């Protein structure tokens, strides 16, 4: 059941990204181009998502377990450290270079031709580099 729910959630998420225009890098970059001809659309994507997600997380925070009886896996980290900030800055730089973040890149993989594929392979390589560095550290 939890596998099926994960599949459905991934599907709804992906369709949301397509409807919102997030799978079009030109549109994402149009939003990030504050100094140019700015397209404010993506601010409304965030607003729409928050509208539904806010009450859901409020309910979830009070539940001892999920509706399927799973333990709640909510993040507990609160520290704002160098890893968080430098990592997020690197992510933002990559996002601004190509206009892809992880979700839309994956949701473009099946129909978007070779460019999303190149991006996704590089992204996986980047995540692999992180794993290797982490394993060496511990």
């Amino acid at each position, binding site marked *: 059941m939890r596998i099926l729910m994960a599949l459905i959630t991934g599907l709804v*998420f992906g369709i949301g990204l397509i409807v919102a225009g997030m799978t079009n890098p030109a549109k994402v970059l149009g939003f990030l181009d504050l100094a140019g001809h700015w397209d404010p659309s993506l601010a409304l994507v965030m607003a729409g998502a928050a509208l539904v997600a806010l009450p859901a997380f409020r309910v979830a925070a009070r539940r001892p377990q999920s509706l399927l009886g799973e333990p709640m896996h909510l993040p507990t980290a609160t520290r704002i450290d160098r890893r968080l900030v430098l990592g997020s800055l690197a992510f933002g*730089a990559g996002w601004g270079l190509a206009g892809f973040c992880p979700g839309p890149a994956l949701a473009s993989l099946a129909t978007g031709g070779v460019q999303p594929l190149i991006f996704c392979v590089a992204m996986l390589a980047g995540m692999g580099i992180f794993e290797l560095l982490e394993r060496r550290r511990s």
Partner: protein
Amino acid sequence: MTVNWTDFTPWTALGGGLLIGLAAALFVLFNGRIAGISGIVGGLLRPAQGERGWRIAFLLGLIAAPLVYTLAAPLPAMRIDAGTGTLIAAGLLVGVGTRYGAGCTSGHGVCGLARGSVRSLAATLAFMGAGFATVFIVRHLLA
């Protein structure tokens, strides 16, 4: 700055956002998890018992989304201006950055902000700021 009203799509942006929020809501309520894409993908690269199935299922749904979408309507236009070198550099930065930063637009930007997490707010400000700055440099300083 001028506002690009021609390409401004408030209703599809809001509607798509509602669907993204719905997915995040379903996932936390039914599965007790954060719908953060970089975390779901990255978690596949480390061994953990009973963790693979739901991650793969979520990603299959995400990857199948455009195929399901075309059953109802043709896919919206998509334009990628980045060349191969830029795509590789961008992918590497996004991969390494989202793992060190413990989240991306979905995990921090949607779920984290909806949880009221200050840590996610800091991450979101950092990646949005870097995104704005990068586009500014590429389009207005280098071009």
